[in-house]
């Protein structure tokens, strides 16, 4: 579980039971701790798909409820207008109607959905890269070990009676080291290429997306689902 409860302000505990409500964003970002090798668990991809669906459904419900609340407010105002000739919520003309507020909220939600998706993608890529790296390292070490062992066997058969264990060990270590280094260099080249490409992509994205705020809306207008 990695959604952290809100803890405190500068070590001073916020007192009282802080109830953490489940939001669609929390559902999207929730990461399950993977079960130990020996224990059975659910299929990761299945869990992820389900999580997405639940989050989308929560968003949808929230939008519907907000819409109903706005409608409720509008009807109540109409009723009041009929009864008393004044709209109670219009005592402050500066406040926007619930309908307008909800429209902006919907745009905000949509922007956050997109951002959460992007973060999820970034996390997956990083995770994938790490497992790739580790299996690469494992394979490299295994190959280097085999190569070193083969060299020792060759040395022994060539030297026959004169074989010196110290020389064999030194030779094995040298070959192992050299092979690991060449593998590492190759890996580093790959990584540098990858990170440069990533940096270029990031820059392109930054150029394409104008900073939010000011007059720019936080997201494109919400299109029909």
């Amino acid at each position: 579980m990695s959604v952290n409860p809100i803890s405190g302000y500068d070590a001073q505990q916020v007192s009282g039971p802080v109830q953490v409500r489940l939001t669609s964003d929390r559902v999207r970002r929730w990461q399950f701790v993977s079960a130990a090798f020996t224990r059975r668990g659910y299929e990761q991809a299945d869990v992820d798909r389900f999580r997405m669906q639940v989050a989308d459904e929560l968003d949808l419900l929230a939008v519907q409820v907000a819409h109903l609340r706005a409608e409720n407010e509008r009807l109540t105002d109409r009723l009041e207008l009929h009864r008393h000739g004044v709209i109670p919520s219009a005592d402050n003309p500066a406040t926007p109607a619930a309908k307008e507020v909800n429209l902006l909220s919907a745009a905000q939600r949509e922007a956050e959905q997109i951002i959460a998706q992007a973060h999820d993608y970034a996390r997956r890529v990083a995770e994938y890269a790490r497992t790739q790296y580790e299996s690469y390292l494992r394979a490299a070490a295994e190959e280097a070990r085999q190569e070193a062992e083969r060299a020792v066997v060759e040395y022994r058969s060539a030297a026959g009676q004169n074989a010196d264990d110290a020389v064999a060990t030194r030779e094995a270590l040298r070959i192992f080291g050299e092979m690991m280094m060449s593998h590492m260099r190759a890996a580093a080249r790959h990584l540098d290429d990858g990170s440069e490409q990533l940096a270029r992509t990031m820059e392109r994205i930054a150029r394409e997306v104008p900073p939010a705020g000011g007059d720019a809306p936080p997201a494109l207008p919400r299109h029909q689902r």
Partner: protein
Amino acid sequence: MDAARLKQSWALVAGHGDQVPLYFYSTLFLTHPQTRQMFGTDMAGQRDGLVSALGHIVSHVDQVDRLVGFLQRLGADHRKFAVRAEHYPAVGEALLATVRHFSGAAWTDELAADWAGAYGVVAQVMTDAARAAEAHSPPWWVAEILAHERRTFDVAVLTVRPQYLLPFVAGQSIGVSHPAVRAWRYYSPANAPRPDGTVELHVRAAPGGAVSSRLVYGCAAGDQVHLAAPVGDALTLRPAGSSDVLLLAGGTGWAPVKALVEQVAAEGSGRRVDLYVGARSRTEFYDSEAIDKAAAAHPWLRVSYVAESDPLRPGEMVRVVDRALSDGDWGSRHVYVCGSDEMVSQSVAALTGAGYQPGQVHHEGFGEHWYGSTWRAVTNPDQSGVTR
């Protein structure tokens, strides 16, 4: 002002969950569009923070003396978001409109007066504190990056020099932001305060983390960053008195621990320090040069490296805390733990299980200082806990 009525009203409103802060911010941005650019695009984490802050305030509204310190810090701290006195009435209007909207038929003139009164007190304390803080510290410090070193694929070590002295205590965290990013993250200086005021920062890029990736991949020597006033006392040496210490560090959680080692060296008290530095694998000890140097220079310091996993032995995990506990009995020591949330919570659990007292185990709170990251930042992907 009727405190009980106010609390009841808040309970009713807060029951609507995330919709409440969402409505609040949308109202604020519609009535005062210029406030939108003070916030990041993604505000999901921020909304949690607003609700818990409001809940905390409302639940203590009848004990203002207990609330004042909290509000004063909040007010002084909000200067780093360029919050000014004229923003407070705007927020108050939006708050009242929100509470009224969610109260529905329960909304009365008395309730309106209660909320307006309570918000007035809060805003007053915060603006006063902000003005008072103006006298002794800037809203943020502009700092120049003197050195930027990529140590591993995702970890960089930065040395920055603030234009004015930024006072802090070893083990505290300071806010870090970049002029191009509207968010703050908290990082612990990896050094005891220096005469030249420079600060060393250890940053791991979190996937999707706006500030951390900018600091690791998008910065170079000569660039500017912004720093904010230090927070947190949990990892300072003070509560340990003069006793010997055991230090457990994981990943970039090594940063505040490094500061503590420097602090011990500076005070020259001769206390013994046993240090366990953990990393995911052998290749990720990004600061071993400095660690080895310190170990060679200080006879009172003993260092153990713990590689948590070995690519040649997949599936096997070695935890820092287990290694430390199997090495000896540290019952008389004060223990400092810093690393990812997972590493810290596991360590604390293991230490507690081994009979260590809560008063002798020191660590930062889990998750984020909610006010700092959440006021206008992307929260989850970039949590300092996770990035360590």
